[in-house]
Structures are given as structure tokens and as C-alpha cells.
């Protein structure tokens, strides 16, 4: 099914563009909170990119990788946001 490969390539290209947008905001963001927000968007784009790669290869390894990525991404972005809110991560 060649059309499916083409559609998956287009989806991956769009997700990569979304990642570029998030990285641009991460680099440029005027304040630290914009950077945390961009990081939050970036790891979600990474998860979706891994999932489309999993569809393309038909293997479940990518699913496990994206599960780990969602857990670690949530933890780190909450730690960063908490640091911005309170000035320390664990009170």
C-alpha cells in the first residue's frame, strides 16, 4: 500500500514542522515560562512522532518508548513549572 506510506511520510513531516515551531519558541521565548511551555509541546510532538514511526514499522517497541517519554516528560515539565512557581521543586 504505497499511498499509506506517502500519508505517513506527510504526517511525519507535519509533526517535524510542529517540532521545529516548538524549538523556535524554546530558543526565542522571551521569558522562562514560554520555554517551559514550548518544552511541554515539544515532548508531546516527540511522542506522536514515535507513534507514527511505530505505525510505519508495525512494531510495538515504539509504543513502549513513547510511554516512557510521556511519563518522563510530564515529570520534568511539572518540576520546571513548580520551580518557576515556588523557587524550589520539593518543599
Amino acid at each position, binding site marked *: 500500500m504505497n*499511498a499509506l506510506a506517502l*500519508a505517513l511520510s506527510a504526517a511525519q513531516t507535519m509533526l517535524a514542522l510542529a517540532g521545529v515551531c516548538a524549538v523556535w519558541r524554546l530558543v526565542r521565548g522571551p521569558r522562562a*515560562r514560554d520555554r517551559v511551555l514550548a518544552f*511541554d509541546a515539544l515532548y*508531546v510532538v516527540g511522542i506522536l512522532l514515535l507513534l507514527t514511526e511505530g*505505525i510505519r514499522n*508495525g512494531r510495538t517497541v515504539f509504543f513502549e518508548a*513513547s510511554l516512557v517519554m510521556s511519563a518522563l516528560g510530564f515529570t520534568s515539565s511539572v518540576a520546571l513549572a513548580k520551580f518557576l512557581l515556588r523557587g524550589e521543586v520539593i518543599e
Partner: protein
Amino acid sequence: MTLAPDLPTWAAIIVAIAALLGAAITLIGAIGLLRLPSFYQRVHPPTLGMTFGAFFILCASMLCFSILQSRLVLHEILIGMFLLLTTPVTLIILTESALREEHGAQTAAFVRGEPVDEPEQ
């Protein structure tokens, strides 16, 4: 890069449309994150990718693996639940830190519904 799973035609069409739709929605959210002028406006667009973008791509993945392994594969729901439950936590903490930094602790207390001292006239 022309690798693709061997799916029946109807499933391939649904998987392709769902993956394209999810990626397009995520891209729209990321463009919004890049273009909108203020922080409070920029908080909203990435949630497009975290809700609907993830929903469509996870549906495509579920359908694809269900047909490839010829049994019901639903473990992608785990990622969806995790994203849906954790995104608001991060964004609420982030927005409250922005409010606190710009308007002082009183506004943040007001947002949480706590009593606020009225300034004396």
C-alpha cells in the same frame, strides 16, 4: 522511506486519514504557539496537539496494530489517558506562576478562590 504495514485497503485509508488529521492539528497548535502575541494566549494552542492530535494518531495506531496482530490492541489508551490527565496539571501550575509574577500573590489567591484583602479606599 516507503515502508508501510500490510493492511487491507479500508483500514489503510482510515489509518492514513487519522494520522494526517492528527499531524495537521498538532501542526496548527504548534504554529499558534509560535505566532500568538502574549503568554496567556500561547498557553492554549499546544493543547490542540495534546488532545485531538494525540487522539487521532492513537486511534490510527490502535486500528493498525489491532489488524496486524488480529486481536484487539488497546494499550494506546494508556498514553491518551496519561496525556489528558497530566497536561492540565503542568499548564495550571505554569499559568499560576505567570499570574503571581505579573500581578502579585493577591491575584493568584483570588484565582484559587481564597478571600482577598480589598485595598483601602
